[in-house]
């Protein structure tokens, strides 16, 4: 994505649907790859989500879908490959080396870059995580190719078979579609939970292509001294929450945010907020829902005093049911919510809390 163009002197002209011929050397690049990210023996779920999306792209292009696993020699790396097959991969490129025990930029950049140069994929997808973003930027610079960050939609342009990657722009007020025409591979990152988790198919398997890393520890400058795992109890877990109650600027004052907490408590829900509230310190950053915060896919999302700007919308529109409370009947959130109540969040929220409490009490009596 253009990082400097917004403040540059001349506005960038949209390229439109201009005709172009792909350089013959680049036409040899075939196949869709997904980098399988793992840490402490666990694959990040974003990798499976990307395989689901990669499957669609590969089918559209009529090419194979591959997982890329860089890890230590042994059963664990092999099991990651097996799991990648079950999530849609046709094959896996496997690079096994003791040096790949912990994620480090240098050996992983070398490994992934070597694989790309040797096996030439046309599309390479990575999770927009602290690991994927660290790696993607380095690999794209080494390969001198285009990288589109934090995509919310991936498609194949039927005219030229190129990857059309859509992402929010201008602070999340608009969307833009970005293409990488005469460079390969076309790289993109996608944030966790943006894409749906594909069905796992136990019967699927695939082939493994092995490739050596070919460097020694002495040549790697950065050393991992320690890994301190997070205490998960301390952190809000919005990404996988089934119910989320979120508040925005419409709550007017920080003192009113307790109304969100009260409803969440009754529902056993997680609490979310928009970016301005986090920036103003009403709630901690881990609760921010939206393009620069968390992407969520709950079964129920209650948005109170949230206008529904693109920046927030892309983080929560995959929710099954969305209830929107806003005093402005023209607020964009009503364009994509399931149910809307036009009114003052400060009076609607307590009423909703009470209605849910009564519903639950009745259900308990009946059940």
């Amino acid at each position, binding site marked *: *994505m*253009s*990082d*400097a*163009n*917004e*403040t*540059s002197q*001349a506005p*960038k002209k949209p*390229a*439109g649907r201009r005709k172009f011929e792909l350089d013959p050397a680049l036409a040899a690049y075939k196949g869709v790859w997904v980098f399988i990210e793992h840490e*402490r023996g*666990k694959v990040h779920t974003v990798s499976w989500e990307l395989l689901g999306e990669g499957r669609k792209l590969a089918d559209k292009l009529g090419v194979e879908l591959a997982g890329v696993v860089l890890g230590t020699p042994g059963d664990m790396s092999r099991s990651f490959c097996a799991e990648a097959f079950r999530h849609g991969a046709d094959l896996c490129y496997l690079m096994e080396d003791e040096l790949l025990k912990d994620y480090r*930029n*240098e050996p992983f950049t070398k490994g992934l870059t070597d694989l790309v140069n040797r096996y030439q994929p046309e599309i390479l997808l990575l999770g927009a995580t*602290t*690991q994927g*973003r660290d790696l993607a930027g*380095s690999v*794209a*610079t080494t390969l001198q*190719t*285009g*990288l589109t*960050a934090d995509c919310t939609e991936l498609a194949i342009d039927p005219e030229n078979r190129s990857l059309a990657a859509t992402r*929010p722009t*201008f*602070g*999340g*007020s*608009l*969307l833009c*579609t*970005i*293409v*990488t025409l005469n460079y390969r591979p076309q790289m993109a990152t996608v944030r966790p939970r943006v894409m749906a988790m594909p069905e796992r198919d136990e019967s699927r398997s695939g082939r493994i292509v092995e490739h050596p890393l070919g460097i020694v520890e002495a040549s790697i*400058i950065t050393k*991992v*001294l320690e*890994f301190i*795992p997070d205490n998960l109890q301390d952190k809000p877990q919005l990404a996988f929450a089934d*119910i989320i109650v979120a508040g925005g600027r419409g709550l007017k004052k920080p003192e009113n945010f307790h109304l969100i907490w009260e409803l969440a408590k009754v529902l056993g829900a997680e609490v979310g907020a928009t970016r301005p509230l986090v*920036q103003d310190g009403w709630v901690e950053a881990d609760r921010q829902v939206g393009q620069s915060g968390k992407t969520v896919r709950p079964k129920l999302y209650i948005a109170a005093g949230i206008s529904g700007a693109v920046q927030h*919308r892309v983080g929560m529109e995959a929710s099954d049911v969305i*209830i929107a409370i806003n005093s402005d009947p023209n607020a*964009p959130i009503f*364009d994509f919510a*399931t*149910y809307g*109540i036009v*009114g003052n969040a400060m*009076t*609607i929220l*307590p009423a*909703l809390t009470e*209605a849910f409490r009564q*519903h*639950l009490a009745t*259900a308990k009596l009946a059940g």
Partner: protein
Amino acid sequence: MHIVVCIKQVPDSAQIRVHPVTNTIMRQGVPAIVNPYDLYSLEEALRLKDKYGGRVTVLSMGPPQAEAALRKAISFGADDAILVTDRVFAGSDTLATSYALASAIRQIQKDMPVDMVFAGKQTIDGDTAQVGPGIAKRLDMQLLTYVSSIPALDMENREITVERRAEGGVQVLRTKLPCLVTVLEGNNEMRFATMANMFRAARYPLKVWDKDGAGIEDITKTGLKGSPTIVSKVFAPTAKTVKAEIIDTESNQPKDLAVTLLAKMFTQHPQLQREIGKSAN
């Protein structure tokens, strides 16, 4: 010790509005600020300077107006400021931006060796988080992203120890200088500008470099030409064809609205009954 901090002037995205009819960006009156993530990096660099001595140079690429962002950085305590500005840079994507900035840092090195480069974790307008890693790669520096703290810096052995946010935990890394660091938000707060530094910022003779000043060797690697990614279209999200069902009651009292909503929702989405019962228990 010499640290270069890369900063960017960005529109305050919280204040960007889209025209409701034409769906175009209304840029008028949107204030320009220093990318908030860059301030965490600048503060961390200034703290290292306070502790170990040395110099902090701030570097920015952008239009001439970006001068304001650099003066702001001087007012916080940076020693030098360089603005890289040239029409050839217009339309640069992250690859072309990292090319230009890396080239400028090489020019800075000619006057005084650079031990560390600090960059924001990401910008609030592009949000890509790619320029930092790109600069590190081009300058062959060790890359340390999402750093939450710097527990040790040993200038004699040129070694740095950092805590880095990883997925599911914190990595403690030790590496050699030179390195490029991006700093995680929320672990420090930008200091207040002192009166003396504010005066200094106002009078500071900013260095302004065009493409030659920045030592650009290959002009085809800058601007639109040097950018592999192309914006093919910009658009407003389409409204769903089915809009929200607005809950309406005769009284429109909060209580009636809430009860009506629940009744409707549980009829149309019976699975939510189970879900809510489950979570609430």
